[in-house]
């Protein structure tokens, strides 16, 4: 990775690696005092990983504790302060939007050996924001290159419930809703090893948009892929194969020493999540959705992310399924 000196008016001949380390130190000090980054702070973009058509993971360097402390479900506000040329000629072009973390990597010498064990000794702690090109802002992010700078603040919001040994996790995603589901699987496997059963269904529009498949296969006891057009896996929506997972609940899942709790997590388009949560509730399964809404401020100020009488930014994004199903404004397309 070669860091670029953007903005374009920065003097030549500076030590950009030192600049990146300086940014990281500054971030660490700020994070240590508050447990979060309160103001947008630039972090170096180390690597851009192509995932699928229009989907990339932006790997940014952060202090190791920000990776080991991250709770799946939480989100960061991400902003590219530069325009496409690395300059600032269109200062209002980019807005700031919420993204959840799709993957993490950390150094072996970092603070969390559990994570380090399966990352092959990367030299840095990295947060991976998995972004799909869905509009002007996310489109600009997918076109960023290693060496660019991304401004982040966070983490914000609620996270998925903590699982225990002997529990079972059911994960149902649609499209880019794959990101928090992958993190939930990764976190559960890291903390509980084989003592957590993980079954997942991932829905996509078509084969070209499928991503995270091999990583999820490695983490889950079972993985079912669905595509709307049938170009890969089971044709149709993720709700198709879901009864197979739900029918097994309560029958033989309970293992000695565990709570035997089964929890369903879902993330994707709201109409899909509504159908999934309804099926889970009907089957008597505890369930949660990771919500995505227009979320401008992230700090309970603007009030534009209401679901029922709650704010997605601080009462969410992870919200309880039974409660969500009672809200008139849940389950519509946005």
């Amino acid at each position, binding site marked *: 990775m070669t860091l670029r000196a953007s903005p374009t008016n920065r003097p030549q001949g500076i030590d950009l690696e030192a600049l990146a380390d300086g940014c990281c130190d500054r971030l660490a000090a700020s994070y240590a005092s508050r447990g979060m980054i309160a*103001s947008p702070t630039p972090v170096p973009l180390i690597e851009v990983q192509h995932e699928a058509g229009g989907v990339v993971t932006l790997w940014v360097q952060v202090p190791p504790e920000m990776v080991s402390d991250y709770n799946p479900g939480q989100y960061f506000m991400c902003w590219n302060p530069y325009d496409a040329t690395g300059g600032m000629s269109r200062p209002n072009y980019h*807005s700031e939007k919420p993204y959840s973390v799709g993957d993490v990597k950390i150094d072996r010498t970092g603070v969390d050996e559990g994570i380090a064990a399966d990352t092959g000794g990367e030299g840095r702690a990295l947060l991976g924001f998995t972004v799909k090109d869905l509009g002007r802002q996310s489109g600009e992010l997918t076109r960023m290159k290693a060496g660019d*700078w991304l401004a982040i603040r966070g983490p914000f919001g609620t996270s998925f419930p903590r699982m225990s040994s002997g529990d079972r996790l059911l994960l149902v995603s649609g499209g880019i809703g794959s990101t928090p589901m992958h993190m939930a699987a990764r976190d559960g496997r890291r903390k509980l090893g084989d003592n957590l059963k993980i079954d997942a269904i991932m829905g996509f529009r078509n084969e070209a948009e499928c991503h995270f498949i091999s990583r999820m296969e490695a983490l889950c006891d079972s993985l079912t892929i669905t595509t709307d057009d049938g170009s890969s896996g089971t044709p149709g929506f993720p709700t198709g194969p879901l009864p197979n997972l739900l029918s097994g609940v309560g029958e033989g899942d309970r293992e000695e020493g565990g709570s035997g709790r089964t929890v369903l997590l879902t993330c994707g388009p709201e109409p899909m999540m509504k159908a999934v949560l309804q099926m889970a509730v009907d089957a008597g399964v505890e369930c949660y959705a990771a919500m995505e809404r227009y979320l*401008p401020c992230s*700090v309970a*100020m603007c*009030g*534009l992310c209401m679901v029922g009488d709650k704010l997605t930014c*601080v009462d969410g994004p992870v919200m309880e399924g039974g409660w969500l199903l009672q809200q008139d404004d849940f389950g519509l397309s946005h």
Partner: protein
Amino acid sequence: MADLGVDIPGLSMSNPLMLASGIQGGSAAALHRVSASGAGGLVSKSIGPIPREMYPGPVCVEAMDSVILNAMGLPNPGADKFAEVVKGEEFAKPMLVSIFGGDAEGYVEVAEKMANAGASCLELNLSCPHAKPGSRALIIGQQPELIREVVAAVKGAVDIPVYAKLSPNTTNIVVEAEAALSAGADGLALINTVSAIEVDPFAGRPVIGNLLCGMSGPAIRPIAQRKVAEISLAMRRGEIPEVPILGIGGITTGLDVARFIMLGASAVQIGSALVWGDVDVFAQIESELAEFMAQNGYPDLESMRGIALDSLEGLS
């Protein structure tokens, strides 16, 4: 148990803690959410003649401890849509409806729609640019003749109490207060945000999407208190009519509320504190205020109101 009740034009409240304008209160759902908290009163987002979208982000950041910066861009559903909220919803707490317009006609249009929908009182957000050519560099609240024009026009159009919300970004805030009061304002609300800018040195550009922003949070509280004190003193001296003052700026504790009341405020508005505690801050601040008053022998807010001004009387 101290009596925290407040009774001022258009606002009969169980405690002096109101939501500040611009925070959450732009929809029925959001206002019900705040209404269910410990707040004594509500203030809506500023409602304009037509719907407005949010500025590009970042729109609101915590720039450093005690400092919130924002430039939302007066996003609101527009007067027609919000009139339905005013008319159709029963809120558990009284609501001050904040309004703005590009000129006096714009303010009057929104004021009439809100009054016709049943609003009990209005707050005029004067911190927006005037549509008149040549006036764009300054906000209405920095031009006393425009304050007079807007307040007089609204007072002439509606019968409900009108509070003028003043900007701190002026030379002598008593001049702007006098302009509002001479035009018939029933009360004053102060302060609005302090004009600010923050630069990200690594990005080499301002942090906020709109570039320019307003500052709030605990760091501006002493500034707000000074402005309230200056206006209260002018009232004591008889230089301007005595009307209720709604104190606003960086309040996060019950002691902060007592400070504003002791400088002459009748009630307060709370906004930035919600960044750190959401709507739960109202109940917490209320219990802190009640405890302080009980411990210090203040039976009600009136017994405490303005007492810190006594030591300032000699100042000219």
